[in-house]
């Protein structure tokens, strides 16, 4: 998958409460969740991002609770991809399961600045910073995970797979 968008930069340990505060969890409607995406990390987030933009963050992105509402909110806010130095492990799982592409790169996470224009190829594992001209090569999203994202997450993936088996 290829994405192009503006980078919005955050620090270390952005927890799931910052991504989607618990006070909004009385609904699991993605549209409602998206309205409050990243609210406690950056109140202006939803207003400033455009479709396809990219979150760039430091270490341990998505730490805290196991709530799946976090990647859902980011995805529904039309963020195309999250790049971080590292992800907390349950967030990492939940991201792929809910079809949010994510890439790990310490170098890119450190060097990319707020508002840089990025171009990403998740299959090749390439992040190109169009603003600085620097290219980063990262571990690509493997084929299976790519498929997971392409079909819209784990539930869809497994549904298709089961249908296929029944058809045989």
């Amino acid at each position, binding site marked *: 998958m290829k994405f192009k968008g503006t980078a919005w930069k955050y620090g270390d340990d952005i927890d799931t409460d910052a991504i989607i505060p618990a006070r909004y969890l009385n609904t699991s409607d993605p549209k409602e969740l998206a309205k409050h995406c990243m609210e406690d990390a950056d109140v202006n987030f939803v207003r400033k991002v455009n479709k396809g933009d990219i979150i760039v963050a430091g270490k341990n992105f998505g730490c805290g609770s196991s709530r*799946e509402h976090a990647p859902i909110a980011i995805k529904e806010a039309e963020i195309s991809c999250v790049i971080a130095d590292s992800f*907390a492990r349950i967030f990492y799982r*939940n991201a792929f399961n809910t079809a949010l592409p994510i890439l790990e790169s310490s170098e890119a996470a450190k060097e990319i600045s707020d508002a840089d224009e990025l171009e990403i190829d998740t299959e090749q594992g390439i992040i190109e910073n169009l603003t600085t001209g620097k290219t980063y090569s990262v571990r690509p999203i493997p084929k299976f*995970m790519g498929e997971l994202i392409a079909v819209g997450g784990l539930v869809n993936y*497994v549904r298709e797979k*089961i249908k296929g088996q029944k058809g045989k």
Partner: protein
Amino acid sequence: MGMTITEKILAAHCGQDKVSPGDLIMAKIDIALGNDITAPIAIKEFKSIGAAKVFDKERVVLVPDHFTPNKDIQSAEQVCTLRNFSREQDITNYFEIGRMGVEHALLPEQGLVVPGDVIIGADSHTCTYGALGAFSTGVGSTDLGAAMATGETWFKVPESIKFIFTGKLNKWVTGKDLILYTIGKIGVDGALYKAMEFCGETIDNLSIEARMTMANMAIEAGGKNGIFKADDITLEYVNARAKRPYKVYESDPDAHYAQVYEFDCKDIEPQVAFPHLPSNCRSISDVGNVTIDQSVIGSCTNGRISDLREAAEVIKGRKVAKGVRLIVIPATQEIYKQAMKEGLLDIFIDAEAAVSTPTCGPCLGGHMGILAAGERAIATTNRNFVGRMGSPKSEVYLSNPAIAAASAVLGRIGSPDEL
């Protein structure tokens, strides 16, 4: 280069000869676990997938343990979802009240988890089963829903950190103290995403229950799993219970570790984790005067029979201090019965403790011993986050069972040596 025990188990479950840290794999799972909080969502996802049958009715385990015996109408509805699903799917291992126990104490006891397994559970303390030489880890509800349908799940192979413990344990020091000490040293994200492998001469002599306590808290250091090799101590425990054949794996001598820590147990006193992080540890001699309102002995960390024995040994013939509540919760029915047989329940009740049927209860601030604002508890549980046992203005301190028992008698956090 050789492989670690974690890498070997994962390789065997995805049909490869070798896996390396960072690889993403599809692995067969041996057990998929859910509880009364997480399984209802997983069941919803399972149905939305369009799956008709669970992958194996013997290998989906459902345990209503958090808000049970049902504390209110909502929790009763949650459990109903599990019960109906279990009936519909003819799930063998659905544990109704009366057979039930806290999930992570129950599964090993029932012989449902064995060495070499890959186990996922929609509960973060699923890492407990690493004590038996299995790979086990917590996941989200969607993961569980999908795994119940397919019998497989995806993993990123973790790097491993080796923790070597040497020397003899000091008096009153248990597995709980070793793991609290470790978390105190490396921090709550010290093992982020990694496998925590425990070994060394001290571990070789440690009981299986103490190992379960340690593996249980791997998540409190950010770990993906905690793991021990299965040795004679493990196999003696497993052989008496196992419902399935199993395979024992061991790390190669030339396996690669991201880090290696060595701890000399002569430096380790009983530990107390102060609010509000499990890493906020002090040695018992450095605690100072911390008065308490409640002491809780139980949970998937320390509600096993050896824990109750340790607490009873301390409290025998004594009384809980005036103004302090001591709540003792055997983690499973079997433990409850054994404690009764050994006269431990008499000891607790004579000391004026409340003894409860198995439940998670106060551990997650569910019921059965919630704290008011300004109250302070010492507990043998695993988390002391803000509001974990009740009011956001209450405080939880974590310790081993002997310290929790002694503190109940003293009315402040202290050691059995002070009695």
